[in-house]
């Protein structure tokens, strides 16, 4: 049966992390202490297992799945916003037709989740989950309300800055990314260990969206721009690693 199998891509693997990502162990974020592995990671050469990836969501993403303000009978409370941007690889090429999933707290800082004990009101008109596929230029667009900050138990008087969770696949198993988008100028940044776990300030700034007057729609909604850059292909062809 082996001759029926497709041959692996001739291009190289993906570039390894150059310090853009947080460590597993970041003691200031208390939940990492018992969950970070303590044995070194085993370096995995990039094979077909890592260079291919799921293509999921096609034909299953509804037209309104990217509008978090129209999932119930009424409109959610809060500041209506448009979040848009492009998903790119490190060379600026668009990542096309790729599934993005988002989830977030409501405008009061409460998740519609049974585990969220923050005594802020739930909004019957807001679930806080959406998804979409990027278009041919790697663009995506969500309509939602600005999430509120919320308290958590990590340390005394701990509050998470307002954020939207983003889940992306990109073209390969190796490019899978889950991240959080923040809002510009949040005073909680310096107190938040999740945000601060990214040690490189330039990399950290890539988590912060940009207010965008061009995306903003008059009399209707503020616009934020958030571009997401997935891993780069390694410039070295795989054959050279033999």
């Amino acid at each position: 049966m082996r001759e029926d199998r497709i041959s692996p891509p001739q291009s190289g693997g993906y570039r390894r992390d150059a310090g853009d990502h947080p460590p597993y162990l970041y003691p200031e974020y208390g939940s990492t202490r018992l969950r970070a592995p303590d044995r070194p990671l085993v370096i995995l050469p990039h094979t077909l297992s890592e260079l291919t990836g799921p293509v999921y969501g096609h034909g299953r993403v509804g037209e309104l799945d990217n509008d978090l303000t129209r999932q119930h009978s009424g409109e959610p409370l809060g500041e209506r916003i448009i979040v848009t941007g492009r998903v790119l690889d490190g060379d600026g090429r668009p990542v096309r037709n790729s599934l993005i999933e988002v989830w977030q707290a409501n405008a009061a800082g409460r998740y519609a989740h049974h585990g969220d004990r923050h005594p802020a009101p739930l909004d019957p008109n807001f679930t806080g989950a959406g998804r979409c596929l990027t278009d041919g230029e790697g663009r995506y667009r969500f309509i939602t309300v600005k999430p509120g900050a919320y308290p958590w138990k990590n340390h005394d008087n701990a509050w998470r800055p307002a954020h939207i969770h983003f889940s992306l696949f990109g073209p390969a198993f190796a490019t899978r990314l889950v991240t959080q988008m923040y809002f510009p100028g949040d005073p909680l940044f310096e107190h938040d260990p999740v945000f601060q776990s990214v040690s490189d300030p330039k990399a950290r700034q890539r988590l912060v969206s940009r207010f965008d007057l061009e995306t903003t729609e008059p009399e209707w909604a503020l616009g934020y721009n958030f571009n997401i850059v997935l891993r780069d292909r390694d410039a070295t062809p795989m054959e050279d690693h033999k």
Partner: protein
Amino acid sequence: MNLGSTPSQTVGPFFHLGLLREDWSRLVDLDHPSAFRIHGTVYDGAGDPVPDAMLELWQADATGRYAHPEDVFTGFGRCGADGAGRFEFVTVKPGSVPGPGGGESWQAPHINVSVFARGLLKRLITRVYFPDEDEANAADPVLASIEDPDFRATLIAHAEDGGYIFDVHLQGDRQTVFFDV
């Protein structure tokens, strides 16, 4: 040009909202002739189950083919842990796939696994290998790259009636092998 990657951030405790709206834990129906259950528990460094974890699978089909967009078998699975840290998938055993560098070497049947959880600032990546593939496992270049046999053994699922068990230990003496991909 290099734009620099967007950093990873934790999925947090409330990812069910966005990521588990549909049940993607069955890659095939249970009545598929070669279907089996594979289940396990995610444990933290204190040996306690991790209830707010999520696993994703990516695997080839029974012939060793990774899914193309038109394929019925997507090769992708996702399951959130329950209150006791347990997960369960229904799938089929993947075929062998080419090893590093192309078609000369072959990898033993394996499932690629991503682990997400509150407290994981980026996903952990591991693999499930199968206990009934001794010959292929012995020739697998990835397994061979792990010197400590006890550590290597954390990647091999345990057979049970009608399926396999694969526990994930995030930390400690029994820690599962995780990969830098």
